[in-house]
């Protein structure tokens, strides 16, 4: 029982960076822009978050910096894909390469350093609930914020005017434009905000989870998040489910490693990724139709008003 609770609690923690990245990408994709640069943006977020925490001694400034850096990268992506009508896949891949390289270069001096990070605290009353209390409510503030974000995003999409405008722009930008919505402005806004959330996910790894910096420390979590968006069929609640599933397998294999099984470590480390592939496989077989129905219809397509057919 004790082991189970601690594995589950660890699952939530290690799933949190993926949850932030997935929510950020959902926000971006809902308005019709596809950003495949998640891995690079997370790395830049991880580095800038760590660097600012280290140099100022204030981890909160570190998180804020990461959010800002993410938004800047999102702005570049928005400029290329919205204003220039460029290929979003290529631009995203370039962002991944750039983020990986730039963070590795700039982070050389940070290797081997550690920071104090942000400590967790239990939420009174809630944390006393059996099982759920120790798994979900004895964490740190960024985990709690991610719960709120899930709920807020869900309500935003379904019940608010800007949320509806966002969906309309992602589904049928032509119609949205004809109804007088500023398509480009809306796409800019959510591409930038989404990238900020993605970078925050990266910063969670370096500032709170590991408290050190290492080259490529996101280890493909950005790509996992891209997969989780599809797994979640663009629903924030299912995004949480997917992120914690990945986190759970991750926490489980770390336990096995620590317990010293005879299974080779590289094989264990592969587990979460293998699981992602399997989940996507089952989704495509079982829910394939639902995925294609829930995907924003204009995802990845640039919009120009005066383009004639």
């Amino acid at each position, binding site marked *: 029982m004790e082991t189970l609770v601690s594995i589950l609690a660890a699952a939530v923690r290690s799933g949190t960076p993926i949850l932030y990245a997935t929510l950020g990408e959902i926000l971006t994709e809902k308005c019709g822009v596809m950003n495949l640069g998640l891995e690079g943006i997370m790395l830049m977020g991880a580095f800038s978050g760590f660097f600012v925490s280290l140099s100022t001694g204030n981890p909160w400034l570190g998180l804020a910096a990461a959010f800002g850096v993410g938004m800047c990268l999102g702005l570049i992506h928005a400029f290329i894909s919205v204003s220039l009508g460029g290929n979003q896949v290529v631009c995203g891949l370039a962002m991944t390469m750039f983020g990986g390289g730039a963070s590795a270069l700039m982070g050389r001096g940070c290797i081997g350093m550690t920071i104090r990070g942000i400590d967790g605290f239990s939420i009174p009353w809630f944390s006393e609930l059996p099982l759920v209390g120790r798994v979900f409510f004895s964490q740190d503030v960024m985990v709690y914020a991610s719960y709120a974000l899930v709920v807020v995003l869900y309500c935003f999409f379904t*019940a*608010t*005017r*800007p949320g*509806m*405008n966002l*969906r*309309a722009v992602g*589904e*049928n930008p*032509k*119609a*949205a*434009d*004809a*109804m*007088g*919505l*500023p398509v480009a402005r809306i796409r800019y806004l959510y591409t930038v905000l989404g990238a900020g959330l993605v970078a925050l996910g990266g910063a969670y790894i370096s500032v709170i989870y590991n408290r050190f910096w290492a080259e490529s420390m996101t280890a493909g979590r950005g790509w996992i998040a891209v997969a989780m968006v599809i797994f979640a069929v663009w629903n924030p609640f299912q995004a949480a489910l997917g992120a914690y599933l990945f986190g759970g397998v991750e926490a489980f294999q770390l336990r096995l490693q620590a317990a010293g099984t005879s299974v080779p470590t590289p094989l264990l480390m592969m587990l979460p990724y293998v699981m992602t592939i399997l989940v996507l496989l089952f989704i495509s077989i079982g829910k394939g*139709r639902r995925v294609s*129905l829930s995907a924003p*219809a204009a995802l990845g397509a640039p919009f120009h*008003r*005066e383009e*004639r057919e």
Partner: protein
Amino acid sequence: MDEGKKSTPLVEMRGITKRFSGVTANSDVNFSVEAGEVHALLGEHGAGKSTLMNVLYGLYAPDGGRIFVAGRPVTFRSPRDAIAAGIGMVHQNFMLVQTLTVWENMILGLKGTPFVLPGKKIQNRIAGISEQYGLEIDPRAAVWQLSTGERQRVAILQMLYRNARVLILDEPTAVLTHQEAGRLFRTIRRMTEEGHGVVFISHKMNEVMNETRRVTVLRGGKNAGAAMTAETTGEALAEMMMGRKVPLDLYRKPMRAGPAVFEADDLRALNDRGLDAVGGLSFHLRQNEILGVAGIAGNGQRELCEALVGLRALTGGTVRMGGANLTNASPRRFVDRGVRYIPGDRRGVGMAPGMDISSNAILRRYWSKPVASGAFIDWKRSEKLSRQIIRDFNVSAPSPRTPVRNLSGGNLQKFLMGRELSDSPKVVIVMHPTWGLDVAATRYVREQLLAQREAGAAILLISEDLDELLALSDRLAVLYRGRFMGILAEPEGVPPEKIGLMMAGTWISEALKDSAPENGSAKEAAS
């Protein structure tokens, strides 16, 4: 209105010019709409009607000219500005977001909507407007669940909800049944009684003559004439549109249908979403005969065509030709048997638009002699072939090396017809052959189909244009939700209202009840 003194129009456009990368779509065009009138905008495809209206709706910025609303000059930077000035447009393919509900679409982009959406309040207001104009709709339904006629009602409501004084309707009846069109005209009359101005874009001369007060005709992007509807005739307007006289009637030679060459029995197929689209169709195609299929878009037409040429898997039923069983055979076996397909999606399915004419000319025969010689393609031969098609089918194209993408709609369709019809087909499956074509090209395409009929082909003609179906078909089937409501053996004698009823889901026996004596021939009711 005051005697003698002219009232200020709701909207006036003066000297509008609009160019698209060198092509002039509108040149010095004048147009105006007054309160309480229906003003028809007539013209052939490419005459610049849609461009002019898109300028009025703020979608295109004009390169020259001015727009006045109630006498005051305005500049529209986007549809938002046009809506604010009381101008609303209902596009041909409705600018609606399918995944949103009716009421959500209604308030899309509307200023002054609260942050958290007050669904109930909005629904009540929609109900009020619905009643006032006779536009019944369930505000909570998602748009993708609605029929085309209902979607149009939503699109009109959307504009009335925004207090539009001027409504632009772009070919509103093209997608409607006879009954639905009648209902639309009642709504339009209510709108003009309330003081709205309506711009009515249409090709259909009888609608223009019956339902409008004034007519403006465009040709080649310029004003070609204007008249009060009551003081002009359909012939005069047609001549203004085309700049010359074009006979409108077709001659369909009386012929005896030959033996059945293509038989479909209890055909079933799914659509792309995996739902039933074709639900048990049985029919046969005979030599020297055109079987027309009427129906509103989205009732299984495309799926039926694809199932008949091997492009869509059958989930049930059989297809036979002569002695051969072609059930779930590959498209190439259908081609080898002499089945030719002219799809509704000409650019997507019919052509490879980026490739040149001579490559497209051999898409269906590159694998066999004489075009193929071993593993190689004889390009000289394909070029010769394409020149032949260009000449025989009056395609206007600079050279066989021109990419198909650069052909106009009419020329592309002529070329496609040429490719499919130039090697004496046995069976022709053709969908929406004249959709989007101008009057002259339409006439040409129809003549070619009749020529094939006389040459002995068995033709299945799927169309949404009832006039076209009645002019060409020897027999007429009516498709509704993937089933035939019946097959009329002598469609000319049947009133269009009855066919309209069948298109809306009434069985043939029910629809023809009152006129049974004169339609004893309609006994061939299917399923």
